[in-house]
């Protein structure tokens, strides 16, 4: 699969708008500035996914994209273990960073993921004039690659490459970082490309 430069730019921009809205909601919840890296679109062979997602323990909140397309793919909020604890601590005003992950952390990640993903989808869907809604979240706190591959197994049944939109978000002192990853099904990707080409076409 190959994307030309213009289309890659357009997809990047789409990811940018979605991630910026998600970052704004995160910033509002934490009442702190959130830095956002420039989003990247990668076309990755399934055999090379381990080069992007390692086996460190992370929280992955996974949302299926529903709406106009019943099975659009997945949005994933990926937060490393240590950042999860910082995140919950900041929301609850506690400071203990040496503790284990608790149910409170699980709820916090699920809830933050929910709000961020809703903002991401609202913003991108509005731009494109379609409806995209997140499913209820599924949460795993485990090796990031192990949870990620369960999602890939849904996307890459007929194809050997997946398109990964990745945006990194960062909060300073104490540092919290995570990624929002969009994994579109081939059907949604085609639709995104069609709509973006429509937007880019001279009228």
């Amino acid at each position: 699969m190959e994307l030309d430069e213009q289309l890659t730019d357009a997809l990047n921009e789409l990811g940018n708008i979605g991630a910026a809205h998600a970052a704004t909601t995160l910033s509002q919840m934490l009442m702190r500035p959130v830095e956002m890296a420039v989003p990247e679109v990668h076309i990755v062979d399934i055999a090379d996914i381990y080069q992007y997602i390692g086996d460190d323990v992370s929280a992955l909140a996974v949302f299926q994209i529903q709406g106009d397309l019943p099975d659009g793919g997945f949005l994933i909020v990926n937060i490393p273990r240590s950042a999860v604890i910082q995140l919950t601590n900041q929301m609850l005003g506690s400071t203990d960073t040496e503790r284990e992950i608790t149910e409170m952390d699980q709820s916090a990640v699920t809830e933050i993921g929910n709000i961020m993903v809703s903002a991401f989808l609202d913003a991108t869907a509005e731009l494109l004039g379609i409806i995209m809604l997140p499913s209820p979240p599924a949460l795993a706190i485990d090796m990031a690659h192990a949870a990620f591959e369960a999602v890939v197994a849904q996307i890459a049944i007929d194809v050997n490459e997946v398109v990964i939109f990745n945006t990194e978000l960062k909060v300073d002192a104490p540092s919290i970082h995570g990624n929002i990853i969009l994994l579109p099904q081939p059907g949604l990707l085609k639709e995104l490309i069609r709509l973006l080409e429509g937007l880019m076409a001279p009228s």
Partner: protein
Amino acid sequence: MEKRIFIEDNAVIIGIGDYCVGTFPMATIGVGSCVALILHDRLRSTGALAHVMLPESCGVTDRPGKFADTAIEAMVAELEGTGSARSHIVAKIVGGACMFAYSTNTLNIGRKNVDAIRNLLKEHCIRIEAEETGGRIGRSVIYRPAESGRLTIKRADGTCIDL
């Protein structure tokens, strides 16, 4: 995204849907719903490792390591092609976890992968020598054919065991 890999030696990393045959150490990281399938020739200290993603190929043949049926077929053929006898091949399987607690059916392909592999191994008359499957935990594995097929599993909770 951060990249970190569990390897101590210069093991060859087998990604999702890949497989490899040889005498050198092979590793695969973060096995969740997928299954790390190891076929080891006890006589020749050689073997194969696949990172199987789905139970059935439904006729797709371009990526044999991706599906249980095509992976076993390809690994056995390649091992036999290099001189292994079927009677000396034993299997070890790791993975097939159910990674998401409350998700609807579709994310929990792990169990189906393990069932498919068990049945296929039986059909191929290959004995399962050891396994660590199921549960709700990711695992990384390293397989060393030259050390009597020693298989080390590192679980997501940090514990390590040898199979």
